[in-house]
């Protein structure tokens, strides 16, 4: 009998603790919520994103906030798990009652959050790559990074320039990798490139020699494209050199970070990928409208964190800034007006490119916002 009574007490105490822990805070601030994969397989995207959001929320507040209102940032780490992302999104919308959400490091996390933000009617700026996030257009969902389709197109264009027509594909089993694979297959057909191999690997795999051996033995392959994000592609790159494969190696923009070069080491030499102007800031022509923004961002980031910029940091910056700029234009944080203002972003110069959104285009970047870069001596070099 006592046992039953105690279970009651224990349960009530437990739930109260939970209630206290979830208590939110007050008043006038602009509440920005973020779900970031700061740990887990996507940590090399999520960690700089988190740092940038926190840094810039601080900077904006120190400069007086937006229209006199401070920015209150709430960041949750989903560890790369889509279901945690969904539950944290719920928490942001229902419990923390945020005005806008910036985040969803991975495509999976973003897609998990989408039904929740659509139902909760909260504007959401995603930091993930797959084209499915904005096609078909969803009312409350926007994104800052370039899509995987754009990456595939950019790579195919470069292949054609080099006179190569037979491509081997190695894609990751993550949301981004799968979507990238679909887009690559579709774009290849459009552009007349033949796909001679289609291998997959797991995001957490530490060895992909089996898959690469098959490609090495495939005499038809003229180049290899790897579609993945985070550290998986670094493992692929290392194994690639270890097996002595000399074909040109392409990556997607899922590795546009110095972390990739650091992890893959010398193996990354000669790898080409499409990236935002941010990573080659100093190499951009002075007349490039992006130059001022990316150089400034690079300076601030490197001073604050003593490590080099990556496009992911840039995407987070763009996301936050577009959101705050929209608050200014909407004259407040009424979610519907805020959403409209985000959709009306025109000519915004960001680290990813020049953003012009519309009711049909919730990303706003065009193909020339992407630059083909090559890894030369451990650094990015613009391919002219």
């Amino acid at each position, binding site marked *: 009998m006592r046992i039953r009574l105690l279970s009651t007490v224990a349960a009530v105490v437990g739930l109260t603790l939970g209630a206290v822990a979830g208590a939110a805070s007050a008043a006038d601030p602009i509440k920005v919520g973020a779900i970031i994969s700061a740990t887990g397989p996507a940590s090399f995207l999520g960690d700089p994103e988190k740092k940038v959001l926190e840094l810039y929320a601080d900077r904006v507040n120190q400069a007086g906030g937006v229209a006199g209102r401070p920015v209150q940032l709430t960041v949750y780490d989903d560890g790369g798990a889509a279901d945690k992302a969904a539950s944290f999104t719920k928490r942001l919308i229902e419990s923390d009652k945020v005005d806008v959400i910036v985040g969803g490091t991975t495509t999976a996390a973003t897609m998990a959050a989408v039904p929740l933000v659509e139902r909760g009617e909260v504007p959401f700026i995603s930091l993930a790559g797959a084209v499915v996030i904005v096609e078909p257009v969803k009312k409350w969902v926007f994104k800052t990074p370039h899509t995987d389709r754009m990456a595939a197109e950019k790579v195919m264009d470069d292949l054609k320039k080099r006179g190569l027509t037979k491509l081997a594909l190695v894609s990751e089993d993550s949301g981004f990798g799968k979507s990238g694979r679909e887009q690559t297959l579709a774009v290849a057909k459009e552009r007349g490139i033949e796909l001679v191999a289609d291998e*997959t690997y797991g995001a957490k795999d530490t060895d992909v020699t089996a898959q690469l*051996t098959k490609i090495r033995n495939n005499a038809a392959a003229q180049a290899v494209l790897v579609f993945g994000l985070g550290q998986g592609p*670094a493992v692929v790159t290392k194994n690639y050199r270890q097996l002595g494969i000399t074909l040109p190696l392409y990556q997607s923009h899922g590795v546009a970070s110095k972390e990739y070069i650091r992890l893959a080491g010398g193996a990354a030499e000669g790898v080409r990928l499409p990236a935002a102007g941010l990573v080659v800031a100093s190499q951009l022509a002075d007349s490039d409208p992006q130059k001022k923004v990316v150089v400034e961002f690079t300076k601030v980031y490197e001073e604050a964190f003593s490590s080099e910029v990556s496009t992911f940091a840039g995407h987070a910056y763009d996301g936050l800034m577009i959101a705050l700029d929209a608050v200014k234009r909407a004259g407040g944080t009424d979610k519907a007006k805020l959403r409209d203002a985000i959709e009306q972003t025109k000519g915004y110069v960001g680290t990813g490119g020049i953003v012009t959104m519309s009711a049909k285009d919730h990303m706003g970047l065009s193909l020339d916002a992407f630059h083909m870069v090559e890894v030369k001596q451990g650094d990015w070099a613009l391919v002219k």
Partner: protein
Amino acid sequence: MFAELLQYMLSGLTIGAIYALAGLGFSIIYNASHVINFAQGEFIMIGGMASATLTASGVPLPLAILIGCGGAMLVGVAVAKFAVERARDASTVTLIIITIGASIFLRGLAELVWGKDFKRLDAFSGETPIQFLGASMQPQSLWVVGCAGVLIVAIGLFFNKTLTGKAMLATSHNRLAAQLVGIDVKRVVLASFALSAALGAVGGAVVAPITFSYTEMGIMLGLKGFTAAVLGGLGHGPGAVAGGLIVGVAEALGAGYISSAYKDAVAFVIILAVLLFMPNGLFGKRGAERV
């Protein structure tokens, strides 16, 4: 054809050597205390992380590995003393939960100390692949197999030739009898944890250049090391080593010839088959408790 097979066998043997070390660690601890130490994988992780971060800040490689080893041994003894010893008489389930709790705790601690990103450790003797009968091999693989081999032989000698080793063996055969002849079984348990931790840590350090080192690296390595130990017969050291190599090679061959997506499942399918048909593993004692 042959080159392909050789390629798979080489990568299988490399990772199999790590599974062997982990399995051996499990066996040693199980022998001394009848505890399955689910934190074994974390010892591997500590070795890898310590070596990577220390060398990155300029410490020479051998010293870094030694420090990593020492650190892991301290952690192992701490786990033995504060968690396992206190729960001596608890049920199997409770002990399993304790070591799992220890592994979660250690992972959390590692994240705090070393951060959540992936650490790179340079290969010990460079990355130029060695061409061997049509397959290419990383020089680091030789280090892995070599170190594992040396350690295993050393452990064998330790158990058979030194007094402490024999005391540990005696404890595993019959704890009460060992106590009766004056062996301090508590010390034996602590020593077994320290030894397994050292094995794991060295394994972690040599494999880090291949797999990168990160706080979650111990999870799968630990679990597969466990399957290696069970495959060989829980408590049978050489069996665990054989088990590790078998699992590693089977995995690589499966990935190459059947399906690379199901690579991780290979170890567990093997284990189920073994448990269903040969519950005591390849070399374990016959006569399982059956009801």
